[in-house]
C-alpha cells in the first residue's frame, strides 16, 4: 500500500469512527452532545427561588390587558426576510408603582408557580403552557407596557397566541 493509499485509508477510517460514535443512541457521548437539557420544571424551580416578594396574581390579571397581537421574529431565509411566529405581544395598562422589571419578574414567577403546581392557571392563561418554558419579556411602550410571550416551537407559539386572544376576549 502506497503512502497515499495509507493516508487515504486513515482519513476514511477516522471519518467512519466519528460518524459511528456520533450516531450511537444511548451512548454517553450523545448525551454530552445534546444542548441545554434543563426541563421546564427545572427552569421553574430556578425562577421560583426569586419570587418571595412577588405575590401570585399581582400582574397576571386579565384586567391589565388592553390588546393582543402576534409576536414575530424576522430571520433571513433563502432570499426572503421571513416572519417567524413566536407567540403573543400583550399591551398592558400601567398600574401605580409597577415597574417594567417588577412586571417581568412577576409574570415569570406566575409561570413558574403554575408549572410547579403552586398556583392555579387561569382559563386561557397566556403566560403558561403545560410542559413548556416560555420566554416572557416586559418593555415600556409609551404610556403602557408591552409583554412579549415567546416560545421556540411554532406549535407552542401558535397556542400562546390563541390563548392570549381568548384571554383578552374574556375581559369584556
Amino acid at each position: 500500500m502506497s503512502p497515499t493509499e495509507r493516508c487515504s485509508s486513515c482519513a476514511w477510517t477516522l471519518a467512519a469512527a466519528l460518524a459511528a460514535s456520533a450516531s450511537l443512541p444511548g451512548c454517553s457521548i450523545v448525551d454530552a452532545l445534546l444542548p441545554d437539557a434543563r426541563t421546564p420544571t427545572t427552569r421553574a424551580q430556578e425562577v421560583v427561588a426569586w419570587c418571595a416578594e412577588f405575590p401570585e396574581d399581582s400582574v397576571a390579571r386579565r384586567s391589565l390587558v388592553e390588546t393582543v397581537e402576534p409576536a414575530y421574529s424576522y430571520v433571513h431565509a433563502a432570499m426572503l426576510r421571513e416572519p417567524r411566529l413566536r407567540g403573543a405581544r400583550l399591551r398592558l395598562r400601567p398600574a401605580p408603582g409597577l415597574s417594567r422589571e417588577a412586571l417581568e419578574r412577576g409574570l415569570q414567577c406566575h409561570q413558574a408557580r403554575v408549572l410547579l403546581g403552586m398556583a392555579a392557571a387561569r382559563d386561557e392563561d397566556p403566560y403558561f403552557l403545560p410542559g413548556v418554558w416560555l420566554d416572557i419579556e416586559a418593555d415600556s411602550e409609551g404610556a403602557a407596557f408591552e409583554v412579549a410571550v415567546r416560545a421556540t416551537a411554532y406549535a407552542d407559539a401558535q397556542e400562546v397566541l390563541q390563548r392570549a386572544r381568548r384571554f383578552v376576549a374574556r375581559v369584556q
Partner: protein
Amino acid sequence: MSAGPTATPAAVSAAPAPADDLAREPFAFGDFSWLNGSNRQSKALLDTPIFTGSLLLDVNYSASRNMPIDNTVVGSTVLYRNSELTVAFLGFGGDLHYEHARGRFMTQLGVRSTGVPRNDFSTFHGQYDLQTALRYVSEANGGYHWDLLHGVNLDAGIFMSYVGLFSFANFENWMYMPSYTSDNTPWFFNGVRLQMYLTETLKIEPWIINGWQTYGKFNEMPGFGSQVLFRPADWLSVLSNWYVGWDAQDQPGLFRWHTDTSGTVSYYHNPKTFITRIASSYTIDVGGEQGDGVAFTGSGTEGHCTTANPCAARFVSGMMYHRVWFGDTFAVTVGGGFMSNPSRYLVLPPTGNASPVPQPLSTQGVQYVTASSPYDLNPGTNFNAWDYSFGLQYMPVEQFTFDLEWNHRQADVPYFAGHGGVTSPDGYITTPTPGGWRADLVKSDDRVVAAWLVRF
C-alpha cells in the same frame, strides 16, 4: 419580514379572533423552518428596529479518495480545496429596514470569493475588472416596500438566485454538497427584482438581470426570469423558476432558456416521538440553448454545428433528498441526482491547466500560464453525470451546525481531479509544466466532507 418592514400584524382588542386568523404575514401561518434551503432559526439575535445583523461562517474539510497532489477540487461551487481546512465563506452584513426603505448587504470573503466569480465569463466583456470589483460582495441590494396586496418589494443590485433549491448559505441546506442541479445553476443575479406577495401563500417575483450568474452582459439583451413560491400548507412548498437570456460571447442569436421546479414535502411530523420529522425534496430542471448552431435536440457533431444541422445543447437534471430529524439536534439525509448537458454550457469549468477560461488572478506575482489542456466546452460535446450522498447534521443550537457527509460523483467523461491534479507535475503553480503534461482528470470522485457552519 418578507412582506416588508412596515407590514403590521392585525391587533385585536376584546374580540375573539377566528381560529385561522393567527398571522397575516406571508408564509407566517406555518412552520417552514424544516425546508431545504431555508433558515431553521426561530429568531435573529442581532436584531434592532432598523438593522438586523447577520454573520455566516462556513468552514469545511473534505478528502477525496483521489487525493489530488495540488489539493484542488474540480467541479463544485461549495468545495474548492482538498484535504485542507478551508474557510469557504465568511459573510457579514444584514438587513436595513426603516419605514418603507429596505436594503441588504453581505460580504463574500473566503475561497468562495475566487471560486464563484471565476465561472462568470461576462466579466471579460469590456473593462473595469468586474470580478475584482464584486468578488467580495455576495448580496448588495435595496429598494422600496409598498403595502399593496400582501406586500410588494422592488429591489435592485446583486441578489441570490435560488435556482436549484439549495441555498447559497450552506447553513440552510440539508446537505453541504448538493447535486449538480444546484451546484451548476446560478448563485447570484445582478439586476432588478419585483417581489409580489399576492396572498399569504403565494409569491411571484419577476427579474430583469444582466445574465445567468453574471456581473455583466454578453450581448445587447438582458436576461429575464421569475420565481414563483407557493406554500399552501405548512407541510408543502413548491418553488419554480424560469429564465431566458442571451449568454454566449459573439453569439447574439444564441438564446438560453431554463426551468427549475422543486417540491418539498414533510410527510411525518410529531415532536413527541424519537423521529420527529421526515421530509423529502424533489427537483427537476429542463433547459436548452437555441440558435447559432445549437438546439435542444440536434444531431450535429463537435466542430460541425451549423444552423442547418445544429448540435444538441440542453440541460436536463434532477435530484431528490430524504431527511429524517431526531429532535431538533440531529438529522440524517440521503439523496442524489443526475445531469445531462450536451454542449456543456452549464458544466463548471475545471481549473488550472484544464481551465478553458482565462485565469486572471495571480498569487504573489506568479502569473497563471495558459492552460496546457483546456477542458472542451465546445458545442457538440457530451456530459452526463450522477451522484449520491448521505450525511449527518448535528445542530445543538440554532446558531451552529456540524455536518459530516459522504459523496460519490460519477461522469461519463474524465472531469474530476485525479491524483495528479490539474496544476503541474508537483501541484504548485510555480512549477513549469513540461510539454505534453496534461491535467489529470478522472471519471469519479468519492469524498468525505465535514463542515462547521455558524450563523448569527
